[in-house]
């Protein structure tokens, strides 16, 4: 048996431009298996665009993306999900008419052959329902499992976003501003939920709330105008002159 690849993600010379506008310029990044990485940068730095290229929502103009040693640069988003990639969205993207349980069940189904079964009613998949409720319990949402998403509070929706991604047991998880718009008590809840993600999962997080996010991160990447400005261990990046200049302010 081959040794598992050391890197969860290897991005090499990634470039993306929309017409004359370069939003990703020669970005190279490596994320080790199980690493906790924080991506910071001012608005418009190309953070979410980078995520969208990793997930396959956008195809890069040039460059290469490898997931656990496998070249995924040209794969469809769903194929990448089957390689162990999962994500959450900055703008909450849930199935609002459906129950929380159904939302998480979709997360489970996505990687199972059940998603193609045109005969067996979904309600017969007791194992999926059970697993879905277990995950909602981890997210502290078990009491709301039969409520439609449209009825629950914003902070709870943020946790459903996470629960759906966690249901897939990803090897690489991309979190796009998981704390955006949350109150301080909700932040604490979500923070501990993120902290509880098993170490088999590498996490890349975009977040502006430095107080919370820095606690969760081991390494930090600073992006600006689509380029990597500083990249490395958390404390080194934070202490760096350029980080203060571009992002943190003096």
């Amino acid at each position, binding site marked *: 048996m081959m040794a598992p690849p050391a890197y969860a993600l290897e991005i090499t010379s990634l470039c993306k431009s929309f017409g004359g506008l370069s939003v990703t310029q020669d970005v190279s990044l490596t994320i080790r298996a199980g690493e906790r990485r924080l991506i910071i940068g001012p608005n418009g730095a190309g953070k979410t665009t980078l995520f969208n290229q990793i*997930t*396959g*929502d956008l195809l890069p103009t040039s460059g290469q993306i490898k997931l656990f040693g496998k070249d995924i640069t040209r794969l*469809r*988003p*769903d194929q990448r*999900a*089957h390689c162990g990639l*999962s*994500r959450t*969205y900055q703008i909450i*993207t*849930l*199935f*609002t*008419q459906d129950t929380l349980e*159904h939302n998480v*069940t*979709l*997360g489970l*189904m*996505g*990687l199972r052959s*059940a*998603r*193609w*079964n*045109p*005969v*067996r*009613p*979904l*309600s017969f*998949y007791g194992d999926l329902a059970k697993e879905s409720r277990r995950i909602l319990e981890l997210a502290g949402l078990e009491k709301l499992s039969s409520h439609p998403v449209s009825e629950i509070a914003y902070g709870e929706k943020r946790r459903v976003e996470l629960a*759906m991604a966690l249901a*897939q047991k990803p090897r690489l998880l991309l979190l796009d501003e998981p704390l955006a718009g949350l109150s301080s008590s909700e932040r604490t809840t979500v923070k501990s939920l993120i902290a509880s993600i098993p170490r088999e999962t590498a996490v890349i997080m975009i977040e502006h709330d430095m107080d919370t996010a820095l606690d969760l991160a081991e390494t930090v990447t600073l992006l600006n105008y689509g380029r990597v400005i500083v990249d490395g261990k958390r404390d080194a990046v934070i202490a760096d002159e350029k980080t203060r200049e571009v992002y943190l302010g003096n």
Partner: protein
Amino acid sequence: MKWIALVVLAALLAALPSFAGEFYINLASQVLIAIIFALSLNLLVGYGGMTSLGHASYTGIAAYMVAILTTRYGIGHGISAVVSIAGTTVAAAGFGLIALRATGLSFLMITLAISQVLWGLAYRMASVTNGDNGITGITRPMPFGISLESAAAFYWFALLVAALAFAAMTIFVLSAFGSSLKGVRDQPRRMAALGFHPWMIRWITFIYSGFWAGVSGLLYVYYSKYIHPTSLSTTNSAEGLLGVIAGGSGTLGGPIVGATLVSLLKNYASGYIERWNMLLGAVFLAIVLLMPTGIVPGVRKLFSRTGKSRK
């Protein structure tokens, strides 16, 4: 309560030929055919979020294939039916490859364009389709030696097929795959990120929907024993769509109610009012204004509201 109502309804439907005259039995057969058509379109429009304005293509293809195979080549009904449905399904797969390159309005325009091409072919390719004269002399099949010549026999046959179609499509919608389909309708990007293949899910549904539209076409040509290019017209596609939307797209019962309404207006009210299209328009307008999501969801909402106010 709900079950009793359903059983009574089923009994009434089965017994219809014993108390209704031939005109009404035939009318009921036409309604059943329209229902199968609307149910199949609802898979696309309601559950898949793919609004098609070319669904009559599949009824037309199936009907023309049966007509040509049986009258011109003298092929037996059983084989003709199987070949026609298979041919229609393959055609749907092919058209799906073209139409599903787009979504939303562009998808609608492509389905419209394809159906217009077929309609034009039916008119112009007279050597095959007999053009504007249509094809006459089609006979009804005799499944298991039972004649379907009488109005009642054909009605029971149509009722059986419609019940099968409803059951099959209901299973499809309630299945795990049905959930995949609804998910792709609501959040295609998220579904892809979760590992679902949105395009493939839509394509499979497109083909399945085409299959059942083909079945309705088969019934149609057996019923009228005649086929004319107007069967492929946009008007027919639009009437189906109207039925789905009026009844409530994305609900199981909606297309049944909607298609019944539209075909009764078309086939019954038209006997009394020359401008039945105007009446149809007025009814549709009223539905849009009073129950924008359609009759079935609208009535359901009405009941749940009165139910709540009583508490």
